[in-house]
């Protein structure tokens, strides 16, 4: 039985609401600041470009190497708007793994499906969720010529309903957190079946090994510091079961850990160390779903995410500001869509991006720990204010331009 690493990396940038006051509402309909372009360029230089170069190198050197990505629609939009050469770089990465016979299932770079806007629509509006997933699939097809066959929800927020949804929509695989409280004695290194589904397979993140790389790698007070790819490969080999799911943010490479921590050398040396044993290999998400049988059924009635120690949505929906703003945005859905006004609908959808609610989180605000949560806003209250002012402007446009009087 081969032993595989399934490396999956998530790429996302949101459209951030600029400082937008109640006096802009009804006057200025542009909510998006120039800061997005600067952030994109900065992260691209530190992370996206060098990581893409490293991955292309690895694909060219090791025929067994595979990688899966998820790229949000808002990220692609921002590339098109601010940095087209970055999108070309991602296309080059996908092409480096493209099967010469045109069979998508043999591609060595997979793109996983998700919502276009990195939203939490699944928990608020199923029809809107469907539309955003379809919009994302269309965009991936237009840009990369691929049709997603695996699915991940925003923040890996998963429950049994999502498993069933993905099954009925024909996906082979769906990703979730391998959380101990759900798994009990079971290992995350097998495939599982969500209850009440036919074909879909559940891949669970091995969070311990993923976080060794994503969070602890450059931590000098960590007992295992420094982490070499040889040591890491040995840990991966020691896992009891055939599939190790390493799910990380793309920015792990170059942004969370800067280049001078040695993270790129670590990444580039990993295939060499891992492939030194003949039974070792890499698989994409869909490949793993095709190859391995399910071990058991795993039920997650409650939402589990890959965030925080609680693995829940409390950083997105934990306080009243977040609940209120989410309530208002989805309450408008039907009226907004009925207008057929693509600019209005586009702005409204950008406001469904979950990052806005995240900036309103007060979870760690009281600790004063600026590193716990990244936010472009001076405080969660400012984040809420800018967002609500923008949302009121959306409502203003709706009423002014589209509500028939009389």
């Amino acid at each position: 039985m081969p032993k595989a690493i399934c490396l999956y990396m998530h790429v996302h940038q949101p459209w951030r609401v600029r400082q937008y006051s109640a006096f802009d509402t009804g006057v200025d309909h542009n909510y998006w600041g120039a800061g997005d372009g600067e952030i994109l360029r900065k992260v691209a230089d530190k992370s996206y470009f060098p990581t893409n170069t490293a991955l292309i190198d690895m694909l060219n050197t090791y025929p067994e190497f595979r990688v899966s990505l998820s790229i949000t629609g808002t990220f692609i939009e921002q590339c098109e708007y601010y940095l087209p050469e970055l999108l070309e770089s991602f296309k080059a990465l996908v092409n480096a793994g493209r099967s010469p016979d045109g069979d998508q299932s043999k591609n060595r770079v997979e793109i996983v499906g998700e919502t276009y806007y990195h939203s939490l629509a699944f928990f608020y509006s199923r029809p809107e969720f469907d539309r955003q997933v379809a919009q994302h699939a269309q965009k991936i097809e237009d840009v990369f010529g691929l049709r997603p066959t695996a699915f991940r929800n925003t923040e890996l927020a998963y429950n049994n309903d999502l498993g069933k949804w993905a099954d009925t929509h024909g996906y082979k695989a769906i990703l979730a957190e391998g959380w101990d409280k759900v798994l009990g004695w079971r290992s995350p290194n097998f495939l599982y079946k969500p209850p009440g589904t036919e074909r879909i397979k559940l891949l669970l993140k091995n969070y311990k090994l993923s976080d060794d790389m994503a969070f602890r790698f450059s931590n000098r007070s960590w007992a295992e510091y420094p982490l070499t790819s040889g040591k890491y490969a040995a840990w991966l080999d020691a896992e009891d079961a055939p599939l190790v799911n390493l799910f990380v943010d793309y920015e792990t490479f170059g942004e969370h850990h800067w280049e001078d921590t040695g993270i790129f050398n670590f990444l580039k040396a990993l295939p060499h160390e891992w492939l030194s044993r003949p039974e070792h290999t890499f698989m994409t998400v869909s490949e793993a779903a095709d190859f391995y049988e399910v071990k058991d059924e795993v039920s997650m009635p409650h939402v589990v995410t890959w965030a925080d120690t609680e693995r829940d949505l409390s950083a997105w929906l934990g306080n009243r500001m977040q609940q209120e703003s989410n309530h208002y945005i989805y309450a408008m859905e039907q009226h907004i869509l009925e207008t057929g006004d693509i600019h209005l609908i586009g702005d409204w959808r950008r406001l469904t991006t979950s990052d806005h609610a995240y900036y309103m989180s007060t979870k760690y605000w009281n600790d004063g720990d600026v590193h716990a949560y990244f936010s472009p806003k001076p405080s969660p209250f400012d984040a809420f204010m800018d967002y609500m002012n923008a949302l009121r402007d959306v409502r203003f446009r709706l009423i002014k331009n589209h509500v028939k009087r009389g």
Partner: protein
Amino acid sequence: MKLLMLGWELPPYNSGGLGVASFNMAKALSKRGVDIQFVLPYKAKHHEAEKFFDVLPASNIPPLINENGDYVAMGAYSGTCSVCRSRSCKHAKSYVEGFIGATRRYADEVARLVTRRKLHPDVIHAHDWLTMEAGVRAKLISGSPLVVHVHATEFDRAGGHYGNPLIHEIEYQGLVMADRILAVSQLTKNIIVREYHIPADKIEVVHNSLDPGDLDDIVVDANDYLYAKELKKQGYTIVSPGGVRLTAQKGISYLLEAMALAMTKNPKLLLLVPSSGDQRNQIIEMAADLGISDRVIFLGFVRGSRQRELYQVTDIFVMPSISEPFGITALEAAHSHTALLLSKQSGVGEVLRNVMRFDYWDTRRLADEIVNISLSPGLSGELCDGAKREYLKFSWADVAEKLSHEYSKVMARAKRNAAKWVEFAAEGAAHA
């Protein structure tokens, strides 16, 4: 340890927050076992204070009473003319001169006290410019190290103007002669460094606290705010700067402008303002000019239980101060479960995180914050609950701990210096 504390007033004879802060500090220090002699410029019985420390009068003068019948100890020290409300007129100047005379007399009396009683405290702790000269004199006589506590500078009181040069001079002398300076906020520390050119490492920030016992929930039966409460039932949001005096320093005119702007977005806003202080007439006129008189209620003189009830009826507390060294009223407002909007020029903003900030001159920003809070139960709820959770994060006991630490640093340095002098003198004798 033995501490000589020099203050201007203590409750119940206090004219403002200085008396309350220095009382709470001394009380918390005495609970840590510090032996305190607290010297005041007037003579009166302080039942509460005398439970915790010795209160020594520097004179036989009784405390003063103002036109409202309230004790003001040795008088308010705003430096503003009581006739024309100016700070630079003939009367204001002579008033300030009179005031400076009073601080000088206090200094003489403290010097006499220290000499007569042969006081050798481990540390002398002087509060604000009023007692600085006394502190310096006590230091020179006793040889004990001097700690100067800055609750406000003349720049703060002057509200953006230069203020009185004589007072600046007294402050400067005190700051230079001090062995250690305590500032009630980083903001105040920055002013001391910038305006008085004192090295930053000589200054330690010690934020004030609040004694919740002072704020025991009162039984609300007064009819003072019936109209406001009625409008509240109609969906109005009540905004107030709390029990401030209308002086330039407090920036109330900016709040008025912001209210006028905010009312264009949400008309259901009501502003409650006390109407005492030298800007009173100007503010009343301004409300009329802005066309919002109907929704601005002037409350007269607000103190004591009327003030606490004001916080209870207030939904949004605004501190638009141009220069506020600390601003303890924000903590009182937080206790009464209000949303807090603090100017970035207010020191209390350094200890609270569940608040919104604005530059005092940025009236659009302030209006924006008022509108949003008034329209959103989510935002106002998070702000109220958050501030209520954190406003007592630092107690007076924490303040006392920090003070003790500063005292021991100063005492250790004084001992080292004394040893050096002995050495130096011995060397000199050897050469002779």
